[in-house]
């Protein structure tokens, strides 16, 4: 008989992890820094539940993550529930129902954890944090630009000053295909070719649109060049209006943040099938993952809305390291100084008993003479991984 060895108790399912000290604290403080900037720009925080009826999660842009939702049956109502894979549909639901009577434009923010059935190739995580904003009830270049500007300011608050915003028009290609009357079968192949920027295949499947699509494909890059290519392209009326809108959004962003790096990709639509206007993806140069994405969608039945979701996990990997709060070891005799130290931003680690000075906990042989009191406090501070020790009324930093 062969038995498998018992599973290691530390093993977690694929794509999940424990966040340890100090990372859990720095993550929380980074999310709060992002949320502070959102709040400062008038975005009021909402907190939807982790779990809700699946229909709610699948409305609007939620349909894009339908196959990523963990589902379970509600024993109470016998209806299917889903664990959210994206918070935007939840915020849209709140905006159209409970906050349906609130004045527009409505600015909401949110932060929370999402779960997805499987991770991506680059990021295998199945639990993904989100922190974002939604601006509901206004359809204007100013609203689109606000997503980029507030997003950039929030990322700057966690030390990310080298950013690149890729602006997209996911409904441009469908408008071109509609106008040219491309058959559904060929549309699918063409969409795949455009998604992979496969110019050879775009020429092969593009028909009368091959020239225009190839030009737009090649135009992806710095905003000015791409906008010039859009101006030069032969576009039907609907697509022309989208290009003009994009140009207005770029101008609105430049007016406030002239140094922000903007790129434009007119034919990109990945993951944005349910978006209806200018969309954006946030990158940090040199990093291989997206820091966030967002864009214009229809909230509820017909309300115009736009939003931006940042991914705090990716943001933290790209941002300069955040230092955790310094920790001070506070011997019993100094307990009275704790409040003042905490008020200065230190974490105090209170002694619960006097350290056993004559009997150090390590395996080292005990020293011949009992160490002075200050020394044993210092040793105890080091053992507990404190950065500082407070003895004799003085704060001392522990050096290596």
């Amino acid at each position: 008989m062969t038995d498998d060895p018992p599973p290691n108790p530390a093993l977690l399912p694929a794509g999940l992890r424990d966040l340890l000290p100090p990372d859990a604290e720095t993550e929380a403080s980074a999310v709060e820094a992002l949320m502070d900037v959102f709040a400062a720009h008038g975005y009021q925080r909402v907190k939807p539940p982790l779990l809700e009826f699946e229909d709610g999660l699948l409305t609007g842009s939620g349909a894009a993550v339908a196959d990523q939702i963990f589902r379970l049956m509600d024993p109470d109502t016998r209806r299917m529930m889903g664990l959210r894979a994206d918070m935007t549909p939840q915020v849209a639901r709140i905006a159209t129902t409970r906050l349906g009577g609130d004045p527009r434009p409505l600015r909401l923010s949110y932060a929370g954890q999402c779960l997805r059935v499987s991770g991506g190739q680059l990021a295998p995580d199945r639990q993904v944090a989100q922190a974002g904003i939604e601006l509901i009830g206004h359809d204007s270049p100013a609203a689109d630009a606000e997503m980029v500007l507030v997003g950039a300011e929030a990322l700057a608050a966690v030390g990310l000053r080298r950013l690149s915003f890729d602006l997209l028009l996911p409904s441009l290609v469908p408008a071109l295909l509609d106008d040219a009357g491309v058959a559904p079968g060929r549309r699918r192949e063409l969409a795949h070719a455009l998604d992979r920027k496969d110019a050879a295949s775009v020429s092969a499947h593009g028909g009368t649109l091959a020239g225009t699509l190839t030009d737009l494909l090649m135009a992806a890059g710095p905003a000015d060049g791409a906008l010039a290519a859009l101006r030069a392209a032969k576009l039907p009326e609907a697509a022309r209006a989208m290009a003009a809108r994009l140009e207005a959004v770029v101008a609105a962003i430049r007016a406030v943040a002239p140094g922000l790096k903007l790129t434009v990709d007119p034919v990109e639509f990945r993951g944005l099938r349910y978006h209806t206007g200018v969309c954006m993806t946030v990158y940090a140069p040199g990093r291989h993952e997206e820091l966030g994405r967002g864009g214009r969608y229809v909230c509820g039945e017909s309300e115009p809305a736009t939003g931006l979701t940042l991914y705090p996990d990716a943001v933290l990997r790209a941002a300069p390291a955040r230092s955790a709060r310094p920790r001070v070891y506070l011997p019993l005799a100094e307990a009275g100084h704790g409040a003042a130290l905490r008020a200065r931003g230190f974490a105090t680690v209170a002694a619960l008993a006097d350290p056993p000075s004559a009997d150090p906990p390590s395996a080292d042989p005990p020293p011949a003479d009992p160490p002075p009191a200050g020394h044993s406090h210092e040793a105890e501070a080091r053992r507990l991984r404190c950065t500082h020790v407070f003895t004799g009324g003085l704060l001392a930093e522990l050096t290596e």
Partner: protein
Amino acid sequence: MTAFFATEALEAEVLQPLVLALPKGRILKECGKLLARAGIVPAAALHDEDSRLLRFPTDDPMLDVVRVRPFDVATFVAFGAAQIGICGGDVLMEFDYPEIYAPLDLGIGGCRVSVAEPRGTVGIDDPSRWSRVRVATKYPNIARRHYAARGIHADVVHLNGAMELAPGLGIAQVIVDLVATGSTLAANGLVESEVIAPVTSRLIVNRTALKTQPEAMGAWIARFRKALA
């Protein structure tokens, strides 16, 4: 809204050399001429099959070359370890990495991914009546997709070479493999019964690299496009 982004608040770009991933073996020789036309002069050791080096400088300090297995070119580029690569269309079909853009057909390394079966079963066994088929291949995804589209479940026997032996030795009914001339198939009593897709080598680029370094990446794509003309 306040203007947070003063231009001076932005840090300068840190420029690091781009990495071009090339496939070992047959395609590498064909790449040589293309690289020359694109004005890329890699260190001579690149074409020395016995060299133990894996990473090679070029005459351009902003471009390095790595030499890896053909299947790994796609993986290196998908994960951003290399920003540019040259890779067969078969590899792209197999992995279908969303992080890879394939902007240019280089027109080299022409061949095809095909189904082949023993000479004895051609025209006798009718695939439209099959529920499942056992396929020996190094392209499990291509094989599964191909048969799934026909309503047939493919049980894949994943081999890395010598696929042609599999039907004769009884571990698979058919094989899905790269076919250039068909002489290996013929020598092993197999017949190419269906072409799944024609294959040529593609210039591939990492999606994020193109998004975040559009000037440098665009310039390299343009150089390769010119070299093709």
